[in-house]
């Protein structure tokens, strides 16, 4: 690879925002490089959040949040269809427990009208009729039919896969440590000692977007990380709760939600605490507080189906709105920072908007070969038994189920490795096609997944990592003549 080549655009950060900008940029004739410091895309906030496509009634009218949320939520269904990403338009209910809450719901309803979002106030009876497992203590709810859920992992990966299918270049494990402006162009230095030059830089570094900006100018905002802890429940009953359920928002945030995920699990959380930017730990007190609130909303929520707890860090900022603009001091340096909630719902709209800004700035031509669709994943569930049989006849590895919780075949795993933006780690496989996400949490399939990765990547199993470089799952063989490989 020629490191001296000049790129039209370098995007720093391959979270859902960086990947969305990359995907939409490839609609134009552009030479694009994406730099990511982790060993996979979407490993910070994009990989640990609620997966909710908010409808957009909540942000204050006139803000970037309101603008991009509403457009993004409207785009999401068709984007997910193009990218073969799981999405469901399940609607959301914001629950009231008091007269005071009812007044808040009224205000939110008015705000929804201003934002152009359809909502409806439901009585207690109407709410319990559609969600009979909610507490009988509730006083009513605000229904937002356009809200949905999406797999945040798949969305991020597929945006990048599609960008790469259309010619974008991704380099992982490249942490940017310095940026210099030389005349009209930018020179980007990475920790590994590599240097890259480009006409345009996009700072989509999420939690680190202010740090990256500081390499070139004094940032106008500061990222103030907030931790959210969650429970994941097994897929025990898809209809137990049908909508995403929010607590009525208070001054400290949207509060605890209960929501189905696209895989049929339930998420319960998040908390909302300030934290160190790298602290992804969970703690018992926070989790038991979440549990208490969730049981207030839904007293029969089966916590014995709990299979995992995790935490994610939101890239909140001190300006309390998305920062999306070209730098005033440094032309062709685009800042896309502080993309907190509803960032996931807004991601595709931000991607489209920023890519248009760059197109205008660089006078990019249309990429006539752009293909907006990714090659479909083939699963038993999608195909049905009869068609799947034909597939097994052609490729018997579709008949070898590796993950019995989620029913994933060896052929699907191989496919997830061989694609653009393919998986190279155990976590990468898990994020893309789910083995390890089920009730057994990988205790049954992990060793098989490691072996398939080693075979496909032509490595010894001791070279296969769980996630980041250095997280090798097993050690080298101690036995016999160590003819590993």
């Amino acid at each position, binding site marked *: 690879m020629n490191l001296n080549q000049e790129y039209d655009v370098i995007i720093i950060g391959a979270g859902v925002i960086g990947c969305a900008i990359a995907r939409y940029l490839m609609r134009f004739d552009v030479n694009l490089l994406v730099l990511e410091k982790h060993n996979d895309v979407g490993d910070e906030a994009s990989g640990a959040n609620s997966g909710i496509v908010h409808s957009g009634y909540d942000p204050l009218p006139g803000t970037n949040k309101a603008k991009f949320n509403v457009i993004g939520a409207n785009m999401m269904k068709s984007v997910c269809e193009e990218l073969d990403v799981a999405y469901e338009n399940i609607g959301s209910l914001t629950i009231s427990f008091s007269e005071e809450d009812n007044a808040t719901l009224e205000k939110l309803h008015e705000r929804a009208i201003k934002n152009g979002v359809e909502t409806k106030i439901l009585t207690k009876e109407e709410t319990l009729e559609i969600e009979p497992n909610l507490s009988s203590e509730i006083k009513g709810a605000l229904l937002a039919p356009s809200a949905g859920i999406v797999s945040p992992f798949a969305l991020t990966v597929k945006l990048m896969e599609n960008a790469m299918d259309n010619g974008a270049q991704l380099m992982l494990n490249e942490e940017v440590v310095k940026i210099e402006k030389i005349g009209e162009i930018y020179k980007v230095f990475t920790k590994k000692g590599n240097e890259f030059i480009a006409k345009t830089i996009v700072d989509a570094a999420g939690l680190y977007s202010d740090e990256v900006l500081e390499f070139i100018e004094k940032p106008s905002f500061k990222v103030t990380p907030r931790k959210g802890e969650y429970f*994941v429940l097994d897929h025990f009953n898809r209809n137990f709760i049908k909508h995403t359920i929010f607590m009525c928002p208070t001054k400290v945030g949207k509060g605890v939600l209960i929501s189905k995920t696209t895989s049929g699990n339930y998420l319960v959380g998040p908390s909302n605490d300030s934290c160190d930017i*790298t602290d*992804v*730990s*969970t*703690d*018992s007190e926070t*989790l038991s507080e979440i549990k208490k609130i969730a049981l207030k909303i839904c007293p029969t929520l089966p916590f014995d189906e*709990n*299979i*995992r*707890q*995790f935490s994610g860090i939101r890239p909140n900022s001190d300006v309390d709105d998305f920062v999306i603009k070209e730098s005033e001091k440094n032309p062709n340096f685009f800042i896309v920072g502080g993309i907190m909630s509803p960032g996931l719902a807004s991601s595709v709209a931000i991607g489209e908007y920023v890519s248009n800004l760059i197109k205008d700035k660089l006078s990019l031509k249309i990429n006539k070969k752009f293909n907006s669709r990714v090659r479909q994943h083939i699963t*038993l569930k999608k195909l049905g*038994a009869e068609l*799947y*049989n034909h597939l*097994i*006849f052609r490729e*018997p*590895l579709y*008949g*070898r*189920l590796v993950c*019995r919780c989620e*029913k994933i075949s060896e052929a699907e795993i191989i496919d997830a490795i061989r694609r653009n933006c393919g998986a190279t780690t155990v976590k990468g496989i898990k994020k893309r096609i789910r083995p390890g996400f089920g*009730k*057994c*949490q*990988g*205790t*049954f399939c*992990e*060793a098989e997944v490691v*072996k398939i990765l080693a075979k496909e990547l032509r490595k010894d*199993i*001791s070279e296969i*990592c*769980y*996630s*980041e470089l*250095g*997280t090798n*799952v*097993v*050690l*080298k*063989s*101690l*036995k016999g003549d160590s003819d590993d490989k």
Partner: protein
Amino acid sequence: MINRDLVIVGGGSAGLASAISAYDNGVNDILILERNGELGGILNQCIHPGFGLHHFNEELTGPEYAHKYIEELKKRNIQYFLNTQVISISNEKIITYINQTGVNTIKAKAIVFAAGCNERTRGQISTPGCRPKGVYTAGLAQRYLNIEGRLVGKKVYILGSGDIGLIMARRMTLEGAKVLGVSEIMPYSNGLKRNIAQCLNDFNIPLRLSNTVTKIFGRDKLEGIEISDVDSNLRPIKGTEKYIECDTLLLSVGLYPFNSLLKEAGCLVNKETKGSLVDQNLETSIEGIFSTGNVLHVHDLVDFVSEESERAGKNAADYILGKRSNVINKLEVKHSLNVGYVIPSIINARSENEDIIFSFRVKKNIKKASIILKNSAKILYSCIKKNLVPSEMIKLKVKNLELIGTDNIQLEVIENE
């Protein structure tokens, strides 16, 4: 759709013993469906000795125990499909499976469900802290070591004194890892006493009772853990925290039946075992579907799995061959507070008196106890047993139990002074 007399789901110790027993009791049309590439199930990775003392009267390793059964299976020409995953079972006993020949269905006259168990994971015990690489269930680490020949780490701590964890403490030590200790949240060990002796004491590995892991450190790779003593309510005691630097944490915190297929088929579930609810013939609430081995309830010894599964195989054969008489009385089996669970949960009596095998566990250590079976009118059976512990399943073979003119049966374990 193909018709078969008996389909056995799972080719591990339970499936193998059921198949052989059903064959020996007159059913020849048997098919075993096994998800792995070989028969024997989890025995293949249990390369340590300690199996077969009850059943074969000699001490065998896991692969040897499996070998003996597989030889018997082959003598009888019983058919089996490998690399075959059952994906659904219907209440009509239609089995859908998938393998490299396609997605196929079979209609069975009877099913023996012998799919084994899963390990409890970190999520299920809610250990707080970071989520780095380096936290493994003991069974997964065992698979990496004994099947792939690889250690998962060099400085190891173990949470839970279950037998797999103890066995792994010895195995990893012998392969050159340093095992720093074992924490057990309960005030007593959950493993067999001899495993404490030969797996921990032999290598001077400390066992900390009433102690647990309260925090996990390391963003990407495990760097260390915090352990704390717990009080009588199993809550960590502030001020007792201790940091231990390690690269591996093994979890040996219990097993649970992998029973989801029968649950989806509509078989009633025993809330205490998480396996199916069965009668004295190991028959579930759906006629002709039997459940046995670790998918029914988690056993401590494979010998007991084999024994139970022979009964399941014979009962399935009797059902297929129409050898059973009608049910003349239906009884529920209840238990007192200090019993964790009892199998069977119900008795479908087909004659006035029957030999019934009860399997149960106590909830706490009891030095000496009277074990009583009674109905509302009288005591039907009693005996005295010593040294009852939760980690050891108790089997009670009651001869000629009176089953007519009686209502529900109650199993009581009464602590003697």
